[in-house]
């Protein structure tokens, strides 16, 4: 399985900056991807999703980009706020026989300074 040990990649930004968090996925057959935000002591929280027939999707202050050629996802957060500080995970929805499961990528810790 994927592992980053005890040291998550960390992105440190100033409040008001734009943040870009990247993720590589492994299964070229995956057709649905989700970004999650996980705050300390909480479970993952849905941010935004994208299907493989799209290359870009926008939400409120967030944009997800999908590059299927290089199996890469990115999450862009506009005007980052201190409340955005958390660990961010991308996940692929896969499975077989009609049952779906989530496979999480390596997380990135986002630290936003006031």
């Amino acid at each position: 399985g994927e592992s980053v040990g005890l040291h998550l990649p960390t992105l440190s930004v100033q409040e008001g900056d734009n943040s870009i968090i990247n993720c590589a996925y492994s299964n070229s057959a995956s057709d649905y991807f989700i970004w999650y935000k996980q705050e300390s002591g909480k479970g993952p929280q849905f941010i935004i999703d994208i299907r493989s027939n799209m290359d870009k999707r926008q939400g409120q202050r967030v944009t997800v980009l999908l590059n299927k050629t290089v199996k890469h996802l990115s999450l862009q957060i506009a005007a980052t706020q201190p409340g955005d500080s958390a660990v961010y995970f991308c996940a692929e929805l896969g499975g077989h026989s009609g049952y779906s499961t989530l496979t999480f990528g390596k997380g990135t810790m986002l630290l936003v300074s006031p």
Partner: protein
Amino acid sequence: DAGVTQSPTHLIKTRGQQVTLRCSPKSGHDTVSWYQQALGQGPQFIFQYYEEEERQRGNFPDRFSGHQFPNYSSELNVNALLLGDSALYLCASSLLRGGYTFGSGTRLTVV
């Protein structure tokens, strides 16, 4: 509307003991999945229950077992606990094809 509820929130067990964790799914959801999240890592899929049966299983030993009840709630059991089982255990409920909602997890510490 309550989301996913997990109990207990924290638990300390001794090596070799057995533990049972509980999950109540979000209202309207019929599928429950369990994940193990070690410190500093992403959640790893353990197994998924639908219609009271295990439908999919990740790469976890038979020491990990589960159950789903007619009201869709679920239990995760771990036997013969090892130090390496210390982790945050997350329950996610969904409909069969997605729409996952996660609980806040149970923090298990094995000493």
